[in-house]
């Protein structure tokens, strides 16, 4: 379930990126790469599970909750990166203001 939810997030963010492309002001591409990277890694993990006789996907509520938590953490990391880079210079007035002597 975790892989499926992360794949869904990867596909959704890729669509959002393409709709906005070539404009990448909000760094949606970074979020896309994050989810695709995790999806590829979990895909490998799934194949190794099959090799060990375990099922490829685990359909449990715990794994689904993990999937949503992972997507949320990815979004949180993207927001932090976005705010740090500040592409719209929202924090510029606060950075420029110097203390009055």
């Amino acid at each position: 379930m975790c892989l499926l939810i992360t794949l869904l997030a990867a596909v959704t963010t890729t669509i959002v990126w393409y709709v906005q492309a070539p404009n990448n002001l909000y760094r949606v591409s970074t979020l896309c790469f994050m989810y695709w990277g995790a999806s590829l890694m979990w895909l490998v993990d799934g194949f190794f599970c099959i090799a060990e006789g375990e099922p490829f996907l685990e359909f449990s509520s715990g794994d689904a909750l993990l999937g949503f938590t992972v997507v949320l953490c990815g979004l949180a990391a993207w927001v932090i990166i976005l705010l740090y880079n500040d592409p719209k210079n929202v924090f510029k007035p606060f950075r420029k203001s110097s203390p009055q002597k």
Partner: protein
Amino acid sequence: MACFLAPAAEAIVMTIVKKSMEKKEAQKVVLNSETGASDNHAEAGIPWSRKLSWLTNLLWGGVFLLAIEHIWHGEVVPWPPFLTAMNNPADIMPMLQEIASVGTSMAILVTLVWAVLVIVADHIYKRKSVVVHAAQEE
């Protein structure tokens, strides 16, 4: 158990390579502007620093989210020795085997997908450059 450490190692190495490529490209731009040489984007293609940023984003993103999963399952903790498998000597060898097999396979697959992405992107860029160049000549 700690399979994400292999892609993390590759991510660190590729980040260092990317930074050095960015410095070289910046120096090349400065040199071109000083000598007055034309910066032919059509021939130069997509900068390697940008291509490497795709790979590092894939790797770091995957490592970060897999680390979340390992914390969820109790395999990684925020205090030393950080990997719970290190507490039991019997678990160390299986952990190292997992890093070598699963972790390395993850790093290889991500790198292969990135290589395909680079080839496709270069092909699209060259095709666009040819179309633009032909339109300018007309």
